[in-house]
C-alpha cells in the first residue's frame, strides 16, 4: 500500500509541471479570427493608384480571391512579395488591401503621391502579385476584419465569404498546409460552375 500522503502531492505536482510545460510551446499571440466564415464586411474604398476608381464588395463576387493586407513599411510583407508573385503567375488572384502607417488620416504627414511612388518602387523591385490595390485610407476595413498588423492574408470564396485568415507571411509551407487544400477545392467548384453556365 503506497502512502497517499506521498502520491497525491506527486500527482498534483506532475499535473502542474505538465500544464506549465505545455505553456512553453503555446503561442500567446495566436488567437481565433472573428472574420472566418463571415462575409467580407461592406466597404467602398478607392484604388491606391487611381483614387477616382472606387471598389466595393463586388470585386470579390464570382472569383476566388486572396486579399493581402500589406504596406511598404512592413518588413515581412517585403519578404513574402516574391513568393506571392510566383503564386500569382500560377494564376492565383491577388488583391491588395493597402494601408499606410505614416499616413495618419487626420494629420497626414505623407502625400498620396509619395505613397504611390514607394509602392511602385517596392513592386518593381520585389514583384507585383496584385491585380490592384484597394487603399484602406482610414484603416476602417482592416479594423472590421480584425486585422492587427501586416501582413495578413484572407482567402475569400466566390460568394465573398472569408474562408482562411492567416496572420503573418505566406511561404511555401503555409501555402501548402493552410491555403492550398481550401483553395484547390474552391477552384474546382469555380471551374465546375463556369462549365455549367
Amino acid at each position, binding site marked *: 500500500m503506497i502512502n497517499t500522503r506521498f502520491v497525491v502531492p506527486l500527482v498534483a505536482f506532475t499535473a502542474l509541471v505538465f500544464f506549465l510545460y505545455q505553456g512553453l510551446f503555446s503561442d500567446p499571440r495566436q488567437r481565433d479570427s*472573428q472574420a472566418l466564415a463571415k462575409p467580407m464586411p461592406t466597404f467602398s474604398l478607392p484604388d491606391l493608384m487611381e483614387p477616382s476608381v472606387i471598389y466595393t464588395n463586388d470585386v470579390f463576387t464570382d472569383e476566388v480571391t486572396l486579399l493581402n493586407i500589406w504596406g511598404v513599411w512592413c518588413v515581412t510583407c517585403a519578404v513574402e512579395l516574391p513568393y506571392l508573385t510566383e503564386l500569382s503567375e500560377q494564376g492565383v488572384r491577388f488583391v491588395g488591401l493597402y494601408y499606410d502607417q505614416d499616413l495618419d488620416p487626420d494629420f497626414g504627414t505623407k502625400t498620396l503621391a509619395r505613397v504611390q511612388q514607394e509602392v511602385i518602387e517596392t513592386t518593381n523591385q520585389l514583384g507585383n502579385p496584385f491585380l490592384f490595390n484597394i487603399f484602406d485610407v482610414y484603416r476602417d476595413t482592416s*479594423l472590421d476584419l480584425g486585422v492587427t498588423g501586416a501582413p495578413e492574408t484572407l482567402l475569400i470564396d466566390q460568394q465573398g465569404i472569408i474562408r482562411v485568415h492567416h496572420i503573418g507571411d505566406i511561404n511555401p509551407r503555409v501555402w501548402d498546409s493552410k491555403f492550398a487544400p481550401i483553395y484547390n477545392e474552391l477552384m474546382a467548384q469555380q471551374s465546375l460552375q463556369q462549365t455549367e453556365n
Partner: protein
Amino acid sequence: MNLLTQRLFIILSIWAVLMLSGLMFSHDAQATQENYQFTTEQQRKDFKRLTKELRCPMCQNQNIADSDAMIAHDMRRKVYQLVSEGNDHDQVIDFMKQRYGDFVYYQPPVNNSTIWLWILPFSVLLIGGWILFKRRPEITPSDTQAEADLLAKADEMLEKDK
C-alpha cells in the same frame, strides 16, 4: 515613541507619499496624444473608461489607452467615433468583440472554458482547508497522560535544582 519607531514612521510616510504621487502621475502620463473633443461629459468619461478596458490585440498586456501601437491608435479613433455617434459602453464593447474576439475586453465572459478561473481558486481554498482540518493532530488520552508525566518529571527536576 522611541527613536526606532520614529524613524520607521518617517520612512513609511515618505514611501506612502511616493507611491501615491507615482499612482497619480502614471494616470496622467497615459499615451493619449490625440486631442479628442467631446460634446458631453458622459462621452468623455465613456471614452476614458473604454480605452482602459479594451486590450490592444497586438500587444501582450496593454490597454489601448496605454499602447502606442498603430492598432491601438486606430481603435481609440474608432472608440471616439462610436462614442460620439451616441453608442453606449456595451455597444462599443460588442463592436470590438465582434472584430477582435473576447480577448479584446479585459473582463472575460463566463463560459465552459473560463469557468475554471472562478472554480479553481475556491476549490484550492476548500481542499487546503479540508487537508488542514484532516491533519490536525488529535489529542488522545495517552497524549495527555504522556504530557502529564513529562510535566511531573520537569517539576521533579526543578525541585531537585532548588
